[in-house]
Protein backbone atom coordinates (compact mmCIF):
# COMPACT_ATOMS: atom_id res chain seq x y z
CA UNK A 1 0.00 0.00 0.00
CA UNK A 2 1.94 3.01 -1.28
CA UNK A 3 -0.19 5.52 0.60
CA UNK A 4 0.39 4.00 4.02
CA UNK A 5 4.05 3.56 3.11
CA UNK A 6 4.30 7.23 2.16
CA UNK A 7 2.69 8.23 5.45
CA UNK A 8 5.08 6.08 7.43
CA UNK A 9 8.03 7.47 5.51
CA UNK A 10 7.08 11.10 6.09
CA UNK A 11 6.46 10.25 9.75
CA UNK A 12 9.93 8.75 10.00
CA UNK A 13 11.56 11.76 8.32
CA UNK A 14 9.65 14.18 10.57
CA UNK A 15 10.80 12.14 13.56
CA UNK A 16 14.40 12.39 12.43
CA UNK A 17 14.10 16.15 11.92
CA UNK A 18 12.51 16.50 15.35
CA UNK A 19 15.38 14.51 16.87
CA UNK A 20 17.96 16.61 15.02
CA UNK A 21 16.37 19.81 16.34
CA UNK A 22 15.37 18.83 19.85
CA UNK A 23 18.11 16.26 20.57
CA UNK A 24 20.82 18.86 21.21
CA UNK A 25 18.41 20.93 23.32
CA UNK A 26 17.41 17.86 25.35
CA UNK A 27 21.05 16.95 25.91
CA UNK A 28 21.68 20.45 27.25
CA UNK A 29 18.63 20.21 29.54
CA UNK A 30 19.97 16.95 30.98
CA UNK A 31 23.27 18.65 31.74
CA UNK A 32 21.53 21.45 33.66
CA UNK A 33 20.24 18.96 36.24
CA UNK A 34 23.17 16.52 36.24
CA UNK A 35 25.24 16.43 39.39
CA UNK A 36 27.54 13.60 38.32
CA UNK A 37 27.79 12.33 34.76
CA UNK A 38 30.74 10.72 33.06
CA UNK A 39 31.55 8.33 30.22
CA UNK A 40 30.26 5.69 29.47
CA UNK A 41 27.02 6.35 31.37
CA UNK A 42 24.15 7.31 29.11
CA UNK A 43 22.30 9.26 31.76
CA UNK A 44 23.51 11.32 34.72
CA UNK A 45 24.42 9.24 37.80
CA UNK A 46 23.13 11.85 40.22
CA UNK A 47 20.50 14.48 39.59
CA UNK A 48 19.98 17.77 41.36
CA UNK A 49 19.90 21.53 41.29
CA UNK A 50 23.10 22.34 43.17
CA UNK A 51 24.66 23.97 40.11
CA UNK A 52 21.60 26.21 39.76
CA UNK A 53 22.24 27.39 43.27
CA UNK A 54 25.86 28.08 42.39
CA UNK A 55 24.82 30.07 39.32
CA UNK A 56 22.27 32.21 41.14
CA UNK A 57 24.21 32.66 44.38
CA UNK A 58 24.20 36.37 45.27
CA UNK A 59 27.99 36.70 45.12
CA UNK A 60 28.43 34.33 42.17
CA UNK A 61 29.83 35.78 38.97
CA UNK A 62 26.89 34.34 37.04
CA UNK A 63 24.56 36.84 38.65
CA UNK A 64 26.98 39.60 37.82
CA UNK A 65 27.15 38.41 34.19
CA UNK A 66 23.38 38.28 33.98
CA UNK A 67 23.11 41.78 35.38
CA UNK A 68 25.84 43.00 33.00
CA UNK A 69 24.14 41.37 30.04
CA UNK A 70 20.75 42.91 30.76
CA UNK A 71 22.19 46.37 31.52
CA UNK A 72 24.30 46.33 28.35
CA UNK A 73 21.40 45.07 26.24
CA UNK A 74 19.07 47.78 27.58
CA UNK A 75 21.67 50.49 26.98
CA UNK A 76 22.26 49.15 23.47
CA UNK A 77 18.52 49.40 22.80
CA UNK A 78 18.43 53.02 24.00
CA UNK A 79 21.46 54.03 21.92
CA UNK A 80 20.20 52.13 18.86
CA UNK A 81 16.74 53.70 19.02
CA UNK A 82 18.21 57.17 19.47
CA UNK A 83 20.10 56.59 16.23
CA UNK A 84 17.56 54.52 14.30
CA UNK A 85 14.34 56.49 14.91
CA UNK A 86 15.61 59.68 13.20
CA UNK A 87 17.27 57.63 10.47
CA UNK A 88 14.11 55.55 9.97
CA UNK A 89 12.06 58.73 9.80
CA UNK A 90 14.38 60.17 7.15
CA UNK A 91 14.54 56.94 5.13
CA UNK A 92 10.90 55.98 5.50
CA UNK A 93 9.27 59.41 5.27
CA UNK A 94 11.59 62.22 4.34
CA UNK A 95 12.78 63.25 0.94
CA UNK A 96 16.26 61.84 1.12
CA UNK A 97 18.46 62.00 -1.95
CA UNK A 98 20.15 58.66 -2.81
CA UNK A 99 17.78 56.88 -0.46
CA UNK A 100 18.44 53.31 -1.66
CA UNK A 101 22.19 53.95 -1.53
CA UNK A 102 21.88 54.92 2.15
CA UNK A 103 19.82 51.79 2.85
CA UNK A 104 22.49 49.64 1.23
CA UNK A 105 25.21 51.41 3.18
CA UNK A 106 23.74 50.07 6.43
CA UNK A 107 23.84 46.56 5.00
CA UNK A 108 27.62 46.79 4.55
CA UNK A 109 28.52 45.46 8.04
CA UNK A 110 26.58 42.31 7.07
CA UNK A 111 28.56 41.93 3.84
CA UNK A 112 32.01 41.73 5.44
CA UNK A 113 33.18 38.99 7.79
CA UNK A 114 32.92 40.94 11.02
CA UNK A 115 35.71 39.34 13.06
CA UNK A 116 38.49 41.32 11.36
CA UNK A 117 36.52 44.53 11.93
CA UNK A 118 35.90 43.71 15.58
CA UNK A 119 39.51 43.12 16.47
CA UNK A 120 40.40 46.50 15.00
CA UNK A 121 37.54 48.20 16.84
CA UNK A 122 39.10 46.78 20.00
CA UNK A 123 42.46 48.23 19.04
CA UNK A 124 40.98 51.65 18.26
CA UNK A 125 38.96 51.59 21.49
CA UNK A 126 42.13 50.78 23.40
CA UNK A 127 43.52 54.14 22.29
CA UNK A 128 40.44 55.90 23.71
CA UNK A 129 40.41 53.93 26.95
CA UNK A 130 37.11 52.30 25.95
CA UNK A 131 38.36 48.72 26.24
CA UNK A 132 36.95 46.89 29.20
CA UNK A 133 34.21 49.49 29.74
CA UNK A 134 30.44 49.21 29.48
CA UNK A 135 30.36 52.07 26.97
CA UNK A 136 32.80 50.25 24.69
CA UNK A 137 30.75 47.04 24.75
CA UNK A 138 27.49 48.95 24.16
CA UNK A 139 29.01 50.67 21.12
CA UNK A 140 30.19 47.35 19.63
CA UNK A 141 26.73 45.85 20.13
CA UNK A 142 25.10 48.92 18.58
CA UNK A 143 27.01 48.53 15.32
CA UNK A 144 26.01 44.86 15.15
CA UNK A 145 22.34 45.70 15.49
CA UNK A 146 22.46 48.85 13.33
CA UNK A 147 21.21 47.34 10.07
CA UNK A 148 18.23 45.72 11.84
CA UNK A 149 17.28 48.78 13.88
CA UNK A 150 17.57 51.14 10.89
CA UNK A 151 15.86 48.86 8.36
CA UNK A 152 13.00 47.81 10.61
CA UNK A 153 12.24 51.34 11.81
CA UNK A 154 12.44 52.57 8.21
CA UNK A 155 9.85 49.96 7.26
CA UNK A 156 7.74 50.88 10.28
CA UNK A 157 7.68 54.58 9.33
CA UNK A 158 7.11 53.78 5.66
CA UNK A 159 4.03 51.73 6.57
CA UNK A 160 2.35 54.68 8.36
CA UNK A 161 -0.61 55.98 6.39
CA UNK A 162 0.28 59.47 5.08
CA UNK A 163 -3.35 60.57 4.97
CA UNK A 164 -3.63 60.41 8.74
CA UNK A 165 -0.68 62.78 9.02
CA UNK A 166 -2.26 65.09 6.44
CA UNK A 167 -5.50 65.08 8.41
CA UNK A 168 -3.69 66.06 11.61
CA UNK A 169 -1.82 68.79 9.75
CA UNK A 170 -5.05 70.11 8.27
CA UNK A 171 -6.48 70.33 11.75
CA UNK A 172 -3.61 72.68 12.57
CA UNK A 173 -1.02 70.45 14.26
CA UNK A 174 2.64 71.43 13.82
CA UNK A 175 5.19 68.98 12.37
CA UNK A 176 6.52 67.86 15.74
CA UNK A 177 3.04 67.44 17.16
CA UNK A 178 2.06 65.35 14.10
CA UNK A 179 5.14 63.20 14.68
CA UNK A 180 4.49 62.81 18.40
CA UNK A 181 0.75 62.15 18.27
CA UNK A 182 0.27 60.40 14.91
CA UNK A 183 3.41 59.08 13.21
CA UNK A 184 5.27 57.71 16.23
CA UNK A 185 2.32 55.87 17.82
CA UNK A 186 1.46 54.24 14.49
CA UNK A 187 5.06 53.17 13.89
CA UNK A 188 5.52 52.03 17.49
CA UNK A 189 4.85 48.27 17.01
CA UNK A 190 7.55 48.09 14.34
CA UNK A 191 9.95 50.13 16.46
CA UNK A 192 9.23 47.84 19.40
CA UNK A 193 10.07 44.86 17.20
CA UNK A 194 13.39 46.44 16.26
CA UNK A 195 14.07 47.15 19.95
CA UNK A 196 13.46 43.51 20.87
CA UNK A 197 15.65 42.41 17.99
CA UNK A 198 18.49 44.67 19.12
CA UNK A 199 18.04 43.51 22.72
CA UNK A 200 18.46 39.89 21.62
CA UNK A 201 21.45 40.65 19.40
CA UNK A 202 23.17 42.38 22.29
CA UNK A 203 22.23 39.65 24.78
CA UNK A 204 23.71 36.97 22.51
CA UNK A 205 26.73 38.87 21.24
CA UNK A 206 30.04 37.07 21.74
CA UNK A 207 32.83 38.20 19.39
CA UNK A 208 32.72 41.93 20.07
CA UNK A 209 32.54 41.43 23.84
CA UNK A 210 35.37 38.89 23.60
CA UNK A 211 37.68 41.52 22.10
CA UNK A 212 36.41 44.73 23.73
CA UNK A 213 34.98 43.69 27.10
CA UNK A 214 37.37 41.03 28.39
CA UNK A 215 38.46 40.71 31.14
CA UNK A 216 36.65 43.55 32.89
CA UNK A 217 33.14 43.19 31.47
CA UNK A 218 31.76 39.63 31.52
CA UNK A 219 28.43 38.91 29.89
CA UNK A 220 26.44 35.65 29.82
CA UNK A 221 27.89 34.43 26.48
CA UNK A 222 31.40 34.92 27.85
CA UNK A 223 30.50 33.13 31.08
CA UNK A 224 29.09 30.27 28.97
CA UNK A 225 32.28 30.15 26.93
CA UNK A 226 34.62 30.18 29.93
CA UNK A 227 32.62 27.53 31.79
CA UNK A 228 32.48 25.30 28.71
CA UNK A 229 36.22 25.62 28.08
CA UNK A 230 36.91 24.71 31.71
CA UNK A 231 34.79 21.59 31.17
CA UNK A 232 32.11 22.77 33.58
CA UNK A 233 29.20 21.64 31.42
CA UNK A 234 26.59 22.20 34.12
CA UNK A 235 27.27 25.93 34.45
CA UNK A 236 27.69 26.22 30.66
CA UNK A 237 24.36 24.46 30.06
CA UNK A 238 22.46 26.53 32.64
CA UNK A 239 23.83 29.70 31.04
CA UNK A 240 22.92 28.36 27.61
CA UNK A 241 19.38 27.73 28.86
CA UNK A 242 19.09 31.30 30.18
CA UNK A 243 20.09 32.57 26.71
CA UNK A 244 17.90 30.03 24.92
CA UNK A 245 14.61 31.03 26.56
CA UNK A 246 14.35 34.61 25.18
CA UNK A 247 15.49 33.56 21.70
CA UNK A 248 12.88 30.81 21.47
CA UNK A 249 10.18 33.07 22.91
CA UNK A 250 11.04 35.64 20.25
CA UNK A 251 10.98 32.98 17.53
CA UNK A 252 7.48 31.95 18.60
CA UNK A 253 6.23 35.54 18.90
CA UNK A 254 8.03 37.21 16.02
CA UNK A 255 5.01 37.21 13.74
CA UNK A 256 2.96 39.09 16.32
CA UNK A 257 5.56 41.84 16.59
CA UNK A 258 6.53 42.12 12.96
CA UNK A 259 3.25 42.73 11.18
CA UNK A 260 3.09 41.58 7.58
CA UNK A 261 2.63 45.10 6.24
CA UNK A 262 5.82 46.22 8.01
CA UNK A 263 7.71 43.08 6.98
CA UNK A 264 6.75 43.64 3.36
CA UNK A 265 8.41 47.06 3.46
CA UNK A 266 11.73 45.89 4.94
CA UNK A 267 14.52 46.84 2.57
CA UNK A 268 12.25 48.58 0.06
Amino acid at each position, binding site marked *: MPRAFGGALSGLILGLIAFA*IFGPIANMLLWTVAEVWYYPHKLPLEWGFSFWERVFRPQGNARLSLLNSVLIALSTVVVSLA*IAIPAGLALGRGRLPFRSLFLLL*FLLPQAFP*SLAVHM*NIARIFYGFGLNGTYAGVVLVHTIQGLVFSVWISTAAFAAVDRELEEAARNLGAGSFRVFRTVTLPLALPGILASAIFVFLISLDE*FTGTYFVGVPDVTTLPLLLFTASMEGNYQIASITALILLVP*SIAFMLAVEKFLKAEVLAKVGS
Partner: protein
Amino acid sequence: MAPRPAPNCVSLPVNAPDRKSLAAIVLMMPALATLCVLFLYPLGYSLLWAFRNEEQDTWTFANFAKSFDFYSTDIIFTVLIVTVSTALIGICSILIAGYLALGENRVAVLILRWLYRWPLFIPFIVAGQLMRTFLAKNGMMNNILVSGGVIEPLQAVSFLDWRGIVVTFVWKQTPFVTLLLAGAIATLDRSTVEAARNLGARRIRVLVEIVVPQVSTTLMVGLILSYVLMMSVLSVPLMINAQSPTMITVDMAWRINSYGDYEVANALGFVSYAMTAVVAWIYLRQGIRQDGNPR
Protein backbone atom coordinates in the same frame (compact mmCIF):
# COMPACT_ATOMS: atom_id res chain seq x y z
CA MET B 1 35.41 96.58 12.02
CA ALA B 2 34.50 93.45 10.19
CA PRO B 3 33.16 94.05 6.72
CA ARG B 4 29.46 93.40 6.48
CA PRO B 5 28.52 90.58 4.15
CA ALA B 6 27.11 91.64 0.85
CA PRO B 7 23.32 91.41 0.96
CA ASN B 8 23.08 88.80 -1.79
CA CYS B 9 25.00 86.14 0.16
CA VAL B 10 23.25 86.55 3.51
CA SER B 11 20.60 83.98 2.85
CA LEU B 12 19.63 82.39 -0.40
CA PRO B 13 15.95 81.59 -0.52
CA VAL B 14 15.61 77.86 0.13
CA ASN B 15 12.63 76.25 -1.50
CA ALA B 16 10.55 73.70 0.40
CA PRO B 17 11.73 70.35 -1.11
CA ASP B 18 15.39 71.28 -0.50
CA ARG B 19 14.67 72.11 3.09
CA LYS B 20 12.96 68.77 3.49
CA SER B 21 15.89 66.83 2.09
CA LEU B 22 18.21 68.89 4.26
CA ALA B 23 16.15 67.89 7.29
CA ALA B 24 16.30 64.26 6.18
CA ILE B 25 20.07 64.42 5.91
CA VAL B 26 20.33 65.96 9.37
CA LEU B 27 18.17 63.13 10.74
CA MET B 28 20.48 60.60 9.10
CA MET B 29 23.59 62.10 10.66
CA PRO B 30 23.77 60.09 13.92
CA ALA B 31 23.33 56.78 12.07
CA LEU B 32 25.87 57.72 9.41
CA ALA B 33 28.39 58.89 11.99
CA THR B 34 28.00 55.60 13.90
CA LEU B 35 28.51 53.62 10.71
CA CYS B 36 31.63 55.59 9.79
CA VAL B 37 33.29 55.54 13.21
CA LEU B 38 32.40 51.99 14.23
CA PHE B 39 32.48 50.22 10.89
CA LEU B 40 34.10 52.02 7.96
CA TYR B 41 37.03 53.35 9.99
CA PRO B 42 37.99 49.98 11.56
CA LEU B 43 37.36 48.29 8.19
CA GLY B 44 39.80 50.63 6.47
CA TYR B 45 42.22 50.14 9.34
CA SER B 46 42.04 46.35 8.95
CA LEU B 47 42.56 46.54 5.18
CA LEU B 48 45.58 48.85 5.49
CA TRP B 49 47.21 47.17 8.47
CA ALA B 50 47.31 43.85 6.63
CA PHE B 51 50.08 45.44 4.55
CA ARG B 52 51.89 47.15 7.40
CA ASN B 53 55.15 46.48 9.15
CA GLU B 54 54.66 48.49 12.32
CA GLU B 55 58.19 48.21 13.70
CA GLN B 56 59.84 49.53 10.58
CA ASP B 57 56.88 51.73 9.69
CA THR B 58 56.80 50.44 6.11
CA TRP B 59 54.39 48.70 3.76
CA THR B 60 54.97 45.02 3.07
CA PHE B 61 53.55 41.73 1.84
CA ALA B 62 55.43 39.83 4.54
CA ASN B 63 52.28 39.46 6.69
CA PHE B 64 50.65 37.49 3.90
CA ALA B 65 53.74 35.34 3.37
CA LYS B 66 53.74 34.55 7.10
CA SER B 67 49.99 33.86 7.10
CA PHE B 68 50.23 31.40 4.21
CA ASP B 69 53.34 29.87 5.76
CA PHE B 70 51.68 29.21 9.11
CA TYR B 71 48.03 28.86 8.24
CA SER B 72 47.63 27.61 4.65
CA THR B 73 46.05 24.37 5.95
CA ASP B 74 43.60 26.37 8.05
CA ILE B 75 42.74 28.61 5.11
CA ILE B 76 41.86 25.58 2.96
CA PHE B 77 40.03 24.02 5.90
CA THR B 78 37.98 27.20 6.33
CA VAL B 79 37.05 27.35 2.64
CA LEU B 80 35.99 23.69 2.68
CA ILE B 81 33.93 23.94 5.87
CA VAL B 82 32.11 27.09 4.83
CA THR B 83 31.49 25.82 1.29
CA VAL B 84 30.21 22.41 2.42
CA SER B 85 28.01 24.05 5.07
CA THR B 86 26.57 26.54 2.58
CA ALA B 87 25.78 23.74 0.11
CA LEU B 88 24.09 21.65 2.82
CA ILE B 89 22.11 24.64 4.09
CA GLY B 90 20.94 25.25 0.52
CA ILE B 91 19.85 21.64 0.00
CA CYS B 92 18.10 21.32 3.38
CA SER B 93 16.28 24.63 3.06
CA ILE B 94 15.11 23.87 -0.51
CA LEU B 95 13.76 20.50 0.63
CA ILE B 96 11.99 21.91 3.70
CA ALA B 97 10.58 25.01 1.98
CA GLY B 98 9.62 22.83 -1.00
CA TYR B 99 7.74 20.37 1.18
CA LEU B 100 5.97 23.23 2.95
CA ALA B 101 4.75 24.48 -0.44
CA LEU B 102 4.06 21.21 -2.28
CA GLY B 103 3.43 18.69 0.51
CA GLU B 104 0.09 16.94 0.25
CA ASN B 105 -0.12 15.63 3.78
CA ARG B 106 -1.51 18.66 5.60
CA VAL B 107 -0.68 17.37 9.07
CA ALA B 108 2.94 16.73 8.09
CA VAL B 109 3.17 20.23 6.56
CA LEU B 110 1.79 21.80 9.74
CA ILE B 111 4.19 19.85 11.96
CA LEU B 112 7.17 20.71 9.75
CA ARG B 113 6.22 24.40 9.69
CA TRP B 114 6.15 24.42 13.49
CA LEU B 115 9.31 22.35 13.78
CA TYR B 116 11.90 23.80 11.44
CA ARG B 117 12.15 27.28 12.96
CA TRP B 118 13.31 26.43 16.45
CA PRO B 119 17.01 27.20 15.95
CA LEU B 120 16.22 30.48 14.12
CA PHE B 121 17.28 32.90 16.84
CA ILE B 122 19.39 30.60 18.98
CA PRO B 123 22.78 32.31 19.24
CA PHE B 124 25.83 30.63 17.74
CA ILE B 125 27.49 30.31 21.13
CA VAL B 126 24.50 28.41 22.54
CA ALA B 127 24.34 26.22 19.42
CA GLY B 128 28.04 25.51 19.96
CA GLN B 129 27.45 24.42 23.56
CA LEU B 130 24.43 22.27 22.58
CA MET B 131 26.47 20.47 19.94
CA ARG B 132 29.48 20.16 22.24
CA THR B 133 27.39 17.92 24.47
CA PHE B 134 25.20 16.32 21.78
CA LEU B 135 27.97 15.25 19.38
CA ALA B 136 30.51 14.21 22.03
CA LYS B 137 31.61 10.60 22.36
CA ASN B 138 29.11 10.04 25.18
CA GLY B 139 26.64 12.55 23.79
CA MET B 140 23.00 11.84 23.15
CA MET B 141 23.49 11.12 19.47
CA ASN B 142 25.91 8.26 20.04
CA ASN B 143 23.80 6.97 22.95
CA ILE B 144 20.71 6.79 20.78
CA LEU B 145 22.62 5.14 17.93
CA VAL B 146 24.04 2.54 20.34
CA SER B 147 20.67 1.95 22.03
CA GLY B 148 19.02 1.60 18.65
CA GLY B 149 21.60 -0.99 17.66
CA VAL B 150 22.82 1.11 14.73
CA ILE B 151 26.42 1.08 16.00
CA GLU B 152 28.39 -0.87 18.59
CA PRO B 153 29.46 0.98 21.75
CA LEU B 154 33.11 0.69 20.70
CA GLN B 155 32.36 2.32 17.35
CA ALA B 156 31.14 5.49 19.03
CA VAL B 157 33.40 8.38 18.09
CA SER B 158 33.34 12.05 18.90
CA PHE B 159 32.08 14.24 16.08
CA LEU B 160 33.73 17.30 17.56
CA ASP B 161 35.95 18.05 14.58
CA TRP B 162 35.22 19.57 11.17
CA ARG B 163 31.98 17.57 11.05
CA GLY B 164 30.82 19.14 14.30
CA ILE B 165 31.41 22.64 12.92
CA VAL B 166 29.48 21.80 9.74
CA VAL B 167 26.59 20.25 11.70
CA THR B 168 26.36 23.29 13.99
CA PHE B 169 26.38 25.74 11.08
CA VAL B 170 23.75 23.79 9.14
CA TRP B 171 21.58 23.36 12.26
CA LYS B 172 21.70 27.06 13.04
CA GLN B 173 21.43 28.61 9.55
CA THR B 174 18.97 26.31 7.72
CA PRO B 175 15.88 27.81 9.40
CA PHE B 176 16.92 31.32 8.34
CA VAL B 177 17.32 30.42 4.65
CA THR B 178 14.18 28.24 4.78
CA LEU B 179 12.18 31.14 6.21
CA LEU B 180 13.31 33.43 3.37
CA LEU B 181 12.63 30.74 0.76
CA ALA B 182 9.21 29.82 2.11
CA GLY B 183 8.26 33.50 2.05
CA ALA B 184 9.41 33.86 -1.55
CA ILE B 185 7.65 30.67 -2.64
CA ALA B 186 4.41 31.84 -1.02
CA THR B 187 4.32 34.89 -3.30
CA LEU B 188 4.81 32.85 -6.50
CA ASP B 189 2.09 32.39 -9.04
CA ARG B 190 0.84 28.86 -8.38
CA SER B 191 -0.55 28.29 -11.88
CA THR B 192 2.68 26.92 -13.42
CA VAL B 193 3.11 24.58 -10.46
CA GLU B 194 -0.49 23.36 -10.74
CA ALA B 195 -0.12 22.91 -14.50
CA ALA B 196 3.02 20.81 -14.13
CA ARG B 197 1.37 18.75 -11.38
CA ASN B 198 -1.65 18.16 -13.58
CA LEU B 199 0.62 16.96 -16.37
CA GLY B 200 1.87 14.35 -13.92
CA ALA B 201 5.30 15.79 -13.01
CA ARG B 202 6.72 14.43 -9.77
CA ARG B 203 6.88 16.88 -6.89
CA ILE B 204 10.66 16.84 -6.66
CA ARG B 205 10.87 17.70 -10.36
CA VAL B 206 8.38 20.54 -9.96
CA LEU B 207 10.46 21.82 -7.06
CA VAL B 208 13.82 21.67 -8.85
CA GLU B 209 12.71 22.74 -12.32
CA ILE B 210 9.89 25.19 -11.67
CA VAL B 211 9.92 26.52 -8.11
CA VAL B 212 13.64 26.88 -7.29
CA PRO B 213 14.57 28.80 -10.48
CA GLN B 214 11.90 31.39 -9.65
CA VAL B 215 13.22 31.98 -6.13
CA SER B 216 16.92 31.65 -6.93
CA THR B 217 17.65 35.31 -6.06
CA THR B 218 16.22 34.89 -2.57
CA LEU B 219 18.07 31.60 -2.17
CA MET B 220 21.38 33.18 -3.18
CA VAL B 221 20.91 36.18 -0.87
CA GLY B 222 20.15 33.87 2.07
CA LEU B 223 23.11 31.64 1.30
CA ILE B 224 25.56 34.53 0.87
CA LEU B 225 24.44 36.12 4.15
CA SER B 226 24.95 32.72 5.83
CA TYR B 227 28.35 32.31 4.18
CA VAL B 228 29.56 35.69 5.47
CA LEU B 229 28.17 34.95 8.91
CA MET B 230 29.92 31.56 9.12
CA MET B 231 33.12 33.23 7.98
CA SER B 232 32.83 35.62 10.97
CA VAL B 233 31.80 33.29 13.77
CA LEU B 234 34.45 32.78 16.39
CA SER B 235 32.54 30.93 19.10
CA VAL B 236 31.57 27.79 17.17
CA PRO B 237 35.05 26.77 15.93
CA LEU B 238 36.53 27.73 19.32
CA MET B 239 34.06 25.50 21.15
CA ILE B 240 33.78 22.58 18.73
CA ASN B 241 37.29 22.26 17.36
CA ALA B 242 40.07 24.62 18.39
CA GLN B 243 42.92 22.21 17.63
CA SER B 244 44.72 22.31 14.31
CA PRO B 245 43.48 22.31 11.62
CA THR B 246 40.86 24.84 12.54
CA MET B 247 39.15 27.89 11.05
CA ILE B 248 41.08 31.11 10.46
CA THR B 249 38.78 32.97 12.85
CA VAL B 250 40.41 31.00 15.66
CA ASP B 251 43.87 31.84 14.28
CA MET B 252 43.05 35.56 14.19
CA ALA B 253 41.96 35.55 17.81
CA TRP B 254 45.05 33.53 18.72
CA ARG B 255 47.48 35.93 16.97
CA ILE B 256 45.98 38.84 18.89
CA ASN B 257 45.48 37.33 22.31
CA SER B 258 48.78 35.46 22.46
CA TYR B 259 51.17 37.65 20.49
CA GLY B 260 49.43 41.00 20.06
CA ASP B 261 50.22 40.38 16.40
CA TYR B 262 47.75 42.58 14.54
CA GLU B 263 49.75 42.34 11.32
CA VAL B 264 49.24 38.62 10.66
CA ALA B 265 45.74 38.76 12.17
CA ASN B 266 44.77 41.50 9.73
CA ALA B 267 46.36 39.63 6.82
CA LEU B 268 44.16 36.65 7.73
CA GLY B 269 41.23 39.05 7.99
CA PHE B 270 42.04 40.25 4.49
CA VAL B 271 41.98 36.62 3.32
CA SER B 272 38.50 36.23 4.82
CA TYR B 273 37.34 39.36 2.98
CA ALA B 274 38.81 37.94 -0.22
CA MET B 275 36.92 34.65 0.23
CA THR B 276 33.68 36.60 0.62
CA ALA B 277 34.52 38.80 -2.38
CA VAL B 278 34.95 35.71 -4.57
CA VAL B 279 31.44 34.55 -3.65
CA ALA B 280 29.97 38.00 -4.23
CA TRP B 281 31.71 38.15 -7.61
CA ILE B 282 30.35 34.74 -8.67
CA TYR B 283 26.88 35.86 -7.64
CA LEU B 284 27.05 39.13 -9.56
CA ARG B 285 28.45 37.43 -12.68
CA GLN B 286 25.68 34.86 -12.53
CA GLY B 287 23.12 37.66 -12.37
CA ILE B 288 24.65 39.43 -15.38
CA ARG B 289 24.66 36.24 -17.41
CA GLN B 290 21.01 35.57 -16.59
CA ASP B 291 19.41 38.81 -17.64
CA GLY B 292 22.07 41.40 -18.30
CA ASN B 293 21.63 43.03 -14.90
CA PRO B 294 23.11 42.17 -11.54
CA ARG B 295 20.15 41.57 -9.31
